[in-house]
């Protein structure tokens, strides 16, 4: 069943294909699947097929190909997927995680204020990615230009593992990275936090992970989407209520899936900067998209993201649970 | 001594060709105005001037000519391995358009398959003809014995001496029992005794099956000993300058005075042709 949601089997059973990453910011997916909360919410007729990915673009690719129904993914891939498909392929239906990105600098780099960023070299994990945009936006806000614009600051999009090595080597002065890398730069390379990205946003919240659904699936089985969100919201609330239990379950799942657990001190430190929420924090997504556009990343025309959210199912679930509905800005 | 050898070997041959062989009986060859010029990027090398030649069914024709005059080229064309630049070749009723197992060329350079041992080299043609495994093994053994290579069935090509390779190639060609044998200096690398013996075997096979044979050699006495006719070629680009019909009775003995005299006459013609042509081209 490619390009369309899975058709029900002869006994009325149906498969829901759920995708996520085995990492911290996807804790809701890890906990929800491990505890069986999702399965419970979906009922016995639905088989939950879990697919694990390494990176957002690959997940979007699979969603495009009709191999994924619901996925946990960061804002950038979601926006790209939406824009590429002319708004047709996917919808954001809930939030999952907020926070968890920082500009870490080397203590001996002499960076005390934004003005000190001049003449320095910074790494970001992906050209045009969320952190890259944040970094460049910060520079721009302080009137600094990057080297390719004739300025003095070098922004070096590199892959996360290389960033750590470079940081350890002193080849870069700082890096704007997501968790757990920010924590590892601090703990393993002696970096210090220059900017916690939460400080850049009102309420200290900004979207890091949210839930998307393929439009085809949403149209075909809105009931299942709603059922899934019931499980999602319940899991978020579980984590909020008992972070300690969630913490060990998350690491257990990471170890089960990748064979390697996160070191506990990294886990503890990283979790302090993260918050789990079903609020998609839509306004922050629009602001991010605006920044990216200003920096020339989203093409020549401001993309129209007005239809990217479909919070109907979420609000239905929230209403059932007696929680406040979420409005779009 | 040669006679004795010949007698001996005729027994081997008798065994080798004992089976009833419907095919393998000679067919006539007709070569009409065949000529050949090799062309590469920036030169044209004429190798053969137009050749006209009729060979009767079961006739044994020997070709003599200076090195590089086009003998091998002519045999290749008759075998259907090389296209002529012009003219046509007829084998029996049909025009030659490619290879066919009724005409088999025995290459000047053995051309054995290095990935096969002697046994399988000899079996190769039989296998192509669809002969069952056991039968072709037996046939191959017979012909390996015929060329005195019993015991070397499992040897690979690089383990053989030059003369042994030539003999394997001979066995391989004879094994498939073609109507026309095109032999390019098949005995060139053999010692006198082996040569005598194999000449005798060849004559015996020919006598038994009446194959049509085109036989290139540089040994004038060999040509006279074997051929019904001997054709003498000019230097490159080759053409037939003289034709000798050899009427000596068979079996012929290399030491026969008549044969030696005939050979001397042909040698003289060969020399004269070479000198003349050499002169013509300013040598």
């Amino acid at each position, binding site marked *: 069943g490619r390009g369309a949601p899975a058709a029900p089997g002869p006994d009325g059973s149906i498969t829901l294909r759920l995708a996520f990453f085995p990492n911290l910011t996807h804790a809701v997916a890890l906990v929800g699947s491990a505890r069986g909360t999702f399965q419970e919410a979906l009922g016995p007729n639905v088989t939950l097929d879990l697919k694990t*990915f390494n990176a957002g673009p690959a997940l979007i*690719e699979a969603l495009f190909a009709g191999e994924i129904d619901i996925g946990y993914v960061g804002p950038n891939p979601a926006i790209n997927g939406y824009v590429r498909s002319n708004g047709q392929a996917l919808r954001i239906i809930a939030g999952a995680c907020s926070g968890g990105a920082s500009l870490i600098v080397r203590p001996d780099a002499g960076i005390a204020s934004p003005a000190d960023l001049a003449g320095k070299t910074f790494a970001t994990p992906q050209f045009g990615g969320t952190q890259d945009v944040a970094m460049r936006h910060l520079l721009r806000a302080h009137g600094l230009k990057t080297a390719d614009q004739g300025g003095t600051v070098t922004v070096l999009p590199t892959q996360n593992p290389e960033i750590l090595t470079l940081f350890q080597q002193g080849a870069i002065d700082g890096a704007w990275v997501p968790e757990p890398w920010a924590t590892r730069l601090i703990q393993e390379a002696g970096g210090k936090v220059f900017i916690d990205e939460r400080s850049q946003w009102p309420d200290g919240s900004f979207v890091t992970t949210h839930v998307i659904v393929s439009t085809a699936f949403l149209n075909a089985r809105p009931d299942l989407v709603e059922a899934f969100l019931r499980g999602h919201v319940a899991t978020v609330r579980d984590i909020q209520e008992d972070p300690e239990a969630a913490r060990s379950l998350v690491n257990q799942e990471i170890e089960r899936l*990748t064979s390697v657990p996160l070191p506990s001190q990294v886990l503890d430190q990283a979790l302090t900067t993260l918050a789990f929420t079903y609020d998609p924090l839509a306004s922050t997504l629009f602001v991010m998209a605006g920044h990216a556009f200003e920096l020339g990343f989203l093409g020549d025309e401001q993309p129209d993201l007005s239809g990217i959210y479909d919070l109907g199912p979420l609000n239905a679930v929230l209403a059932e649970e007696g929680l406040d509905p979420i409005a779009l800005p | 001594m040669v006679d004795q050898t010949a007698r001996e070997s005729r027994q081997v041959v008798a065994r080798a060709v004992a089976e009833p062989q419907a095919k393998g009986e000679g067919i006539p060859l007709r070569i009409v105005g065949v000529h050949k010029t090799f062309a590469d990027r920036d030169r044209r090398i004429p190798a053969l001037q137009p050749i006209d030649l009729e060979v009767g069914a079961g006739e044994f024709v020997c070709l003599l000519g200076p090195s590089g005059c086009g003998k091998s080229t002519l045999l290749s064309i008759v075998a259907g391995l090389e296209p002529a630049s012009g003219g046509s070749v007829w084998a029996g009723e049909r025009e030659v358009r490619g290879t066919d197992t009724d005409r088999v060329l025995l290459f000047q350079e053995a051309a054995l398959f290095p990935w096969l041992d002697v046994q399988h080299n000899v079996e190769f043609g039989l296998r192509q003809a669809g002969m069952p495994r056991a039968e072709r093994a037996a046939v191959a053994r017979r012909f390996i014995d015929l060329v005195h290579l*019993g*015991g070397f069935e499992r040897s*690979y090509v*690089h383990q053989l001496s030059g003369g042994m390779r030539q003999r394997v190639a001979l066995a391989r060609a004879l094994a498939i029992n073609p109507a026309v044998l095109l032999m390019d200096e098949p005995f060139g690398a053999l010692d006198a005794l082996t040569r005598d013996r194999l000449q005798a075997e060849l004559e015996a096979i020919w006598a038994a099956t009446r194959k049509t044979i085109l036989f290139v050699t540089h040994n004038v006495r060999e040509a006279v000993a074997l051929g019904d006719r001997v054709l003498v070629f000019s230097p490159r680009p080759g053409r037939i300058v003289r034709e000798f019909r050899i009427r000596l009775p068979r079996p012929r003995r290399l030491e026969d005075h008549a044969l030696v005299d005939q050979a001397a006459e042909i040698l003289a013609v060969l020399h004269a042709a070479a000198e003349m042509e050499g002169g013509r081209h300013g040598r």
Partner: protein
Amino acid sequence: MAAEILRNRPRAAGPSRAALLPWVRRLGFYLALLALWEGVARAGFWPPWILPGPLTVIETLVEGVQRGTFVTGAVVSLRRLAIGYGISLALGLVLGLLIGRIKVLDETLGSLVLGLQALPSVCWLPLAILWFGLNERAIIFVVVLGALFSIILGVQAGVKNTPPLYLKAARNLGARGPAVYTQVVLPAALPAILSGLKQGWSFAWRSLMAGELLYFTLSLGNLLQIGRDLNDAAQVMAVMLLIVIIGVCIDQILFAPFERRVRERWGLA
């Protein structure tokens, strides 16, 4: 005459000294390499989390094997490799032969091969998902496309470089149709083809490492990726070591004896 070809040369019981010598040399070489590596690692130019020594790496490898992750991963990966390589082999031999022998195919398809071969395996991931979905077959597809062109290239070159004399001899002896390919072209080109097959094998490995990132399962590709994602140099190197060991073993078990036999027959040894 046959009597003199003595077949009773005394065979040593067990491997002879001369046959062992290469292995002794090889062992010495590998030990020396490890010692050098350990030396560099200990010299402290670079911190151990960037350049771990062989002892650390081997320890990680042993641990991984004990926990079973490396074993499971290797088994999963080798299975995919075997299937993918097998398919490329079959396809590559046929296509290589045809392209090598048929001029029109060479001019058209053949001209594309080097271009397609240059494409990194990640390029095939989207197509793989499209055609096969998120499953084994998609990964195997990536492996096949990674190795196929390389094998085609090797076979084709081998075929083209075969002395035409063999073909002439074969036609002359009545070889026709497929027999020409299976009994002449292929064996004649075999020594050259073997090197193409080895190249294809490497391409298959590399493509597998890319293809396994399609989605997450326990496999060498993902163990490598996890190592990288965690910046765990010891794990990365342990996986690398495993790949190299497997590569060397496959070479010694599969390719080397085959090559040796072919060369012996041809008298190339």
